[in-house]
């Protein structure tokens, strides 16, 4: 029997299935780029978008350094915008290189998940 899916264990390699943790980590970069496809968002918005649109629940302590890394790699750009709350927010947006990277990763993902689904089809039948 496969282990039950633990959505909240992206950050704790010791407490969950290591393979699943690695899988989620590997997808996180694409997931973040995808949330920004529709336009600029700030950190907390990205977190909430990930939470509502996918099972990818990420801790803040993981996501902010990752955003900073994606920016250093030239995939994201950022700007400060004043908010009503009085504190400025750091908005992130995809750069042209970031869009390119997101498209490439999405294409790879589709190919990969397509072949995995075909490969796993017999397992699905066996379960039923």
């Amino acid at each position: 029997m496969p282990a039950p899916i633990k959505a909240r264990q992206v950050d704790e390699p010791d407490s969950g299935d290591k393979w699943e943790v690695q899988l989620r980590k590997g997808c996180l970069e694409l997931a973040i780029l995808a949330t920004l496809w529709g336009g600029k968002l700030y950190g907390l918005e990205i977190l909430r978008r990930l939470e509502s649109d996918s099972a990818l629940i990420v801790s803040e302590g993981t996501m902010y350094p990752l955003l900073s890394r994606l920016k250093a790699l030239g995939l994201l750009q950022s700007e400060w915008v004043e908010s009503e709350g009085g504190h400025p927010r750091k908005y992130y947006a995809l750069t042209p290189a970031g869009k390119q990277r997101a498209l490439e990763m999405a294409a790879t993902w589709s190919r990969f998940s397509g072949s995995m689904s075909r490969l796993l089809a017999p397992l699905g039948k066996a379960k039923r």
Partner: protein
Amino acid sequence: MTSNDSRTMNAYLERLRGALRGVDESEVREIVQELRSHILEKAAGGDVDSALAALGGPEELAGRYLTDSLLARAAGSRSPVRLLRSLLRWASLSLAGFFVLLGSVLGYFLGGVFILVALCKPFHPQNAGIWTYRDTAGDLGISVRLGYGNAPGVGAELLGWWIVPLGLLVGCGLVMLTTHSALWCISTYRKSRALPGSGTEDE
């Protein structure tokens, strides 16, 4: 936010700032400001303590930023001194960094010795060079000598004056090879990281 909450948040951010030493000041300011904004917004709908808990310990959080910033800078440097300085910091953060530092120090040291021997030879032909000798147990040993002091009485010198061009060649080659290897390790490590690690340990 109460003044107590405010104090708790500022204390956290100060610890983070302290742990981020080595990162450019402008970058540190951005990180701290972004997290302050995040904590303020989260704490508005809950409490500061849970917002801080979700971020993890300030040192652990800083470690995630640090490794990336360090490796990015190290990957862009060609000077052995700057590279070693970055590696020293990386070594304090992860085991992989420690081994790369160890290898690099060894490579630079050996390269440096060869270059020094070659440079000293014209001035101290008796003292600088490579000798083979037999030690008391009869095993064959090789000794590299440079600088002042007495010439090794026993043993046969290898290479002679050839040590000057060969030493320079091998020494410079070793230094270049070490730089390339270290940069290769850094870029491989950066690519292999799907995420900025877990701070202090490799996964």
